[in-house]
């Protein structure tokens, strides 16, 4: 068995998945921020995807077949399902249709390797929230997950507290003393990266790799621009981004 419904412990996390009606005060650092079900028959692909999600602090259950996926769904609730189409025991789209007919509305992003336009259309018609074509930029997957969860706003919401600020990645806002500030996409992602491991120093290179597509070339001072902008958004909070000369940046003040 390559997969299974084992919950992988987060490597580093400070976010808690909560329902909208949950009490914010019960959230604490170290809990799983989002819980994913990854339905993918290829272990080689499943492992890095799972690891990447785990690196971001999410919990991932991996199912290699549709029947395993069904078992997982019976046992737990997920914030999002990442679904492959071609699986050994059936077609992911049919599985999805069956789920939707049963009234299960867990958000689904289909990962397709087929890429044909007709497949994309099919996928959306089957009830998927979005699709992503393999191989994918991990940042893009995150963006799509965020977009889907944002669209499904009522279904799942995550708010993270760091020191005296509240961070909502879905609405891309930080709240400091009831002052709600919007983060632009790269500010948001930069803040997410730094918030993923507070106190840890991230080099410019590391941040670049996470913030920009590998397909584009970025100038050396691009990171400094975004760090500068994010600092402005955090003004008034205890939380701040420190420059560690020669090494990089880190988030402090939590």
């Amino acid at each position, binding site marked *: 068995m390559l997969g299974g419904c084992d919950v992988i412990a987060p490597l580093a996390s400070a976010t808690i998945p909560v329902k909208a009606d949950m009490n914010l005060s019960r959230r604490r650092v170290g809990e799983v921020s989002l819980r994913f079900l990854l339905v993918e028959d290829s272990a*080689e692909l499943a492992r*890095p995807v799972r690891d990447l999600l785990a*690196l971001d602090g999410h919990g991932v259950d991996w199912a290699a077949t549709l029947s395993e996926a069904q078992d997982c769904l019976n046992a737990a609730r997920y914030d999002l399902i990442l679904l492959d189409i071609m699986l050994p025991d059936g077609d992911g789209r049919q599985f999805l249709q069956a789920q939707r007919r049963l009234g299960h509305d867990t958000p689904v992003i289909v990962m397709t*390797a087929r890429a044909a336009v007709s497949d994309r259309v099919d996928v959306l018609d089957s009830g998927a929230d979005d699709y992503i074509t393999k*191989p994918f930029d991990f940042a893009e997957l995150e963006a799509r997950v965020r977009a889907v969860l944002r669209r499904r706003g009522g279904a799942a919401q995550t708010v993270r507290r760091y020191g005296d600020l509240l961070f909502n990645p879905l609405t891309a806002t930080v709240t400091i003393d009831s002052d709600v500030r919007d983060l632009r996409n790269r500010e948001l992602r930069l803040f997410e990266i730094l918030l993923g491991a507070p106190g840890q120093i991230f080099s410019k290179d590391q941040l670049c790799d996470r913030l920009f*597509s*590998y397909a584009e070339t970025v100038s050396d001072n691009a990171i400094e621009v975004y760090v500068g902008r994010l600092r402005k958004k955090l003004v008034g909070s205890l939380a701040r981004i420190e420059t560690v000369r020669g090494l990089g940046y880190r988030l402090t003040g939590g």
Partner: protein
Amino acid sequence: MRAVFATGSLRARLVVQLLVVAAVLAVLLYFTVRSTADRAAEATQDAILGAATVSIAEQLRGGDGGVEVDLAYATFSMLGAVGQDRLFYRIDIGGETVTGYDDLPVPDVRPASLAAVFYTTPYLDTRVRIAAVARSIIVDKGPVPVLVLVGQTRQGQAAIADQLANRAGLIGLGFFLLAVPLSLLSAGSVFNPINRLAEAVGRRGPRDLRPVRHPAPSELAPLIGALNGFVARLRGTLSQTETFIAEAAHHIRTPLSTVRSEAEIALRQSTDERTRVRLRSMIRGVEASSRSASQLLDHAMVLYRSDQLEGVAVDLCQITRSLARAFGPTAELREVTLLVEGDAAPLCVLGDALLIESALRNMVDNAIKYSAVETEVRIVLATDAGMVRVEVCDQGRGLSGAGLTELSGRFTRGGNVGDVVGSGLGLTIVTEVAAALGGRFELVERDTGGTCASLFLPQL
């Protein structure tokens, strides 16, 4: 266009054959009637001639003074009645001609009984049909042989036969003339099922690969069978092609995904700068190959679908908007604002949704890809002189003077995009889709910087 080599017309061949048959039948009818009429008339005339001759022979009586001959006026009168033929007779008694035409030819063989012997022979200036009857008569010395000949020209018979034959000829001609429209009609009705079958097959759309179930005469069953066999093979081949494209994509992308994801993890965890450089270039490589694979497959799909295009109404507005939504996160990642302008009302064109989506996808993808950070990509939908125009404008780096002709070539890329991953097939796909759907594609550099790509498609 495929050339259809027509070697003569079946219909013409059938008509000609029917007419030849009709002509042969008409001629046969003429000659049959002619000979039958001739024979029938001869038989009738012979019967009358024979009866007259026998009657004359029976009226010969033996007596003391020799043989008494009494020709009946009525008999002669009657013989002439049919065709007003000339009449000759001769009565020989005891080998001596006693009356009549004494040079009228006698039969080669003397008739045996009272039954008449008939023969045709030239006499005077004409041909005569002669009936000869022999008997013997008891005269005082004993039996004396008697030979009675009655000859008749047969102009009347010929006239009757001619008349009948001419009538048959006329009927034959009429039959032939009637056969002309009838054979045209019949050839038409014979070929109707073929024409209807051809129409039924011709009406089918390019994607209709169901077996032909059109009712047709049994003679066409082998043709339909062969056609259905061909359709089945074609369907098999086509579905194999489609499946192949999909399978190929799957088999290329899955391992690429693995490599990419592993590389990404390694990149996150590695702090060694040299390793990170390698990993980055590896990821770029994967990105490039997956993109190329995608576009190659898209291109193949475009060619394949353009080839068997089946026009349906496609709502460009709806396609554009859902595409914009799908590109939303991608644009967001680069902090590019994706705007759709224009009414949400349907803007329909005749075409193929997948082809159109493929073209628009490439246009939008290019725009986002080559956009600078924190700029806008504007999608405008408008109608323009009977055409629907989808314009995708970016504020990117422009084309640095290159024209569409150079850029739309396969695997051709602009001179200013070396830093961005691309395959060089995107614009080719858009151009080909535009051509397949009867529209056009324009790519212009904006004065204010950036590029506008416009796809024009005929409005429905």
